[in-house]
């Protein structure tokens, strides 16, 4: 399988590496530099967001988040990300299944198509979707400026995650067990439900978590597509950006903290799932 752009389900650090040594002075210094860079680039800025939100106490921060327009944006973002994740769980598993178990001409092309949303600039993704589903659509549906645009944008940018996490697990599955079950008279559905699905569940869950996180944080593809109408199509990240542009950094930080909380939760879930997959593998 050529899992190209999203090696998402592959855990960083799969097993305890054999022969991992204690730090030497050189590697210790290297670790120091690396952690310093990582802190300056990622950890320090992200803590600045949380601290800025907490600066005026959690009360005002909470008020910012539960203010009508922001709350509507958060609801839309989280709700739509959940719906899209559900679609991805089904479609992603199905696509992975067809890519692994079926053989036909043009499969290579499908592999490339699945990775495109990952590499395509998000603003271009918005424009791409607009060309088929916007007001100039050659087939009719005009999703621009209504909620379907958010659904469509999320669906596009999260396409690779479930596929790419499920695919390698499915490819390594032992088919003899399935054949044994079938030879004992189990129907295809039973084989899938009782034998294939349980082994895929952690991978599907990991892909779902990634796809949810990606959906919730999406910004670029919506800029041109959704019209960013308050209470209607404005998502959380757009709301944060307008706070930044109005120089309301504290308000932006409060909402950003909420998004960070979601990202952290997803990271923790992923870490636990990966550990579980290692134990099974």
């Amino acid at each position, binding site marked *: 399988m*050529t899992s190209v*752009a999203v090696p998402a389900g*592959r855990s*960083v*650090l799969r097993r305890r590496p054999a*022969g*991992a*040594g204690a*730090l030497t002075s*050189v590697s210790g210094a*290297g670790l120091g*530099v*690396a*952690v310093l860079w*990582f802190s300056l*680039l*990622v950890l320090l*800025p*992200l803590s*600045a*967001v949380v601290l800025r939100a907490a600066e005026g106490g959690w009360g005002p921060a909470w008020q910012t988040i539960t203010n009508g327009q922001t709350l509507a944006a958060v609801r839309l973002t989280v709700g739509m990300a959940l719906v899209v994740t559900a679609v991805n769980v089904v479609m992603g598993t*199905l*696509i992975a*299944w067809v890519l692994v178990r*079926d053989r036909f001409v043009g499969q290579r092309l*499908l592999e490339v*198509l*699945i*990775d495109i949303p990952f*590499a*395509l*600039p*998000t*603003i*271009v993704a918005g424009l*791409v979707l607009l060309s*088929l589903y916007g007001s100039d659509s050659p087939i009719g549906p005009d999703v621009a400026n209504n909620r379907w645009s958010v659904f469509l944008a999320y669906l*596009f940018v999260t*396409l690779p995650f479930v596929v790419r996490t499920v695919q390698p697990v499915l490819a390594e599955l032992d088919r003899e067990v399935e054949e044994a079950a079938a030879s004992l*008279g*189990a129907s*295809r559905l039973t084989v899938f439900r009782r034998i294939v699905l349980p082994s895929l569940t952690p991978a599907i869950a990991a892909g779902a978590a990634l796809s949810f*996180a990606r959906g919730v*944080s999406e910004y*670029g593809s919506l800029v041109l597509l959704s019209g960013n109408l308050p209470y209607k199509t404005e998502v959380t*990240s*757009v709301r*944060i*950006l307008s706070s*930044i542009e109005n120089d309301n*950094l504290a308000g932006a*930080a409060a909402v*950003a903290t909420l*998004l*960070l909380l979601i*990202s952290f939760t*997803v*990271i923790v879930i*992923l*870490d636990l799932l990966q550990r579980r997959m290692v134990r099974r593998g």
Partner: protein
Amino acid sequence: MAEAHLTPRRPADAVWPRLRRTAFRWTLRAIVVGYLFLLVAWPLSLVAREALDGGVGRIQELFDDPDVVHALRLTVVVALWAVALNTVFGVGISILLVRYRFPGKRLLSALLDLPLSVSPVVVGLALVLVYGGRSGWIGPTLEDAGIKVIFATPGMVLATAFVALPLVIREVVPVLEEVGVEQEQAAQSLGASALQRFRRITLPSIKWAVVYGVVLSLARSLGEFGAVKVVSGNVLGETRTATLVVEEKYLNFDKGGAYATAFLLALISVACIVVVSLIRPKEGSR
């Protein structure tokens, strides 16, 4: 319930199941192909058609506009810096994570994935809060020393590096785990220095993983939009990148220009994906 499923199949049923299986397989195939066609292939081809409407004239026009040329050049410069930083950091941290034991390793390896799920707008905001010239934590100090980060190229490099951070690591770590340490230990026992071991043994074995990581990071970096929008200030001819040009042109009703720029960017990212999928060996032959 289990018993019903375990009834042995009679031979007479054998033809129908095979037919049904074929029909089933074709249905799945059709669903998947249709879905990907509607979601990705068709819209993408429409952008290409729009951009190439009337030949390459529109793309030629882009290169005649000095502001667009500046934006493209800036995009490339920022992306190259970000990729260079991420490659050095990524290879280094991968070796440390796989080959050494140290406290906090699990936490570090989990945190390294964080940039994948943080919203680009939040990334931009976070960098402004620390490096902002007016009220950032260390921004004013840096500005006094003559280093402008936010609303300038360094900030855009930081934003881009943040967003693409895990890509090299995610490619290199599994390969490093796969190759093991025997060769390195053998070289060490024969008296090879750490640098020699890295250059002659470790680097050749992770070479392709690094190449994939770099190509993917490049695609991601050239296309970064949200984070760069926040930290760049989006000044025409100064800090406006190619992705920001797409937005600006579209909002100013220059649809042709927007589609042409988008097409150019899409071409690069699709090329990156195709290159990786062509040079990546099939799993198992690695």
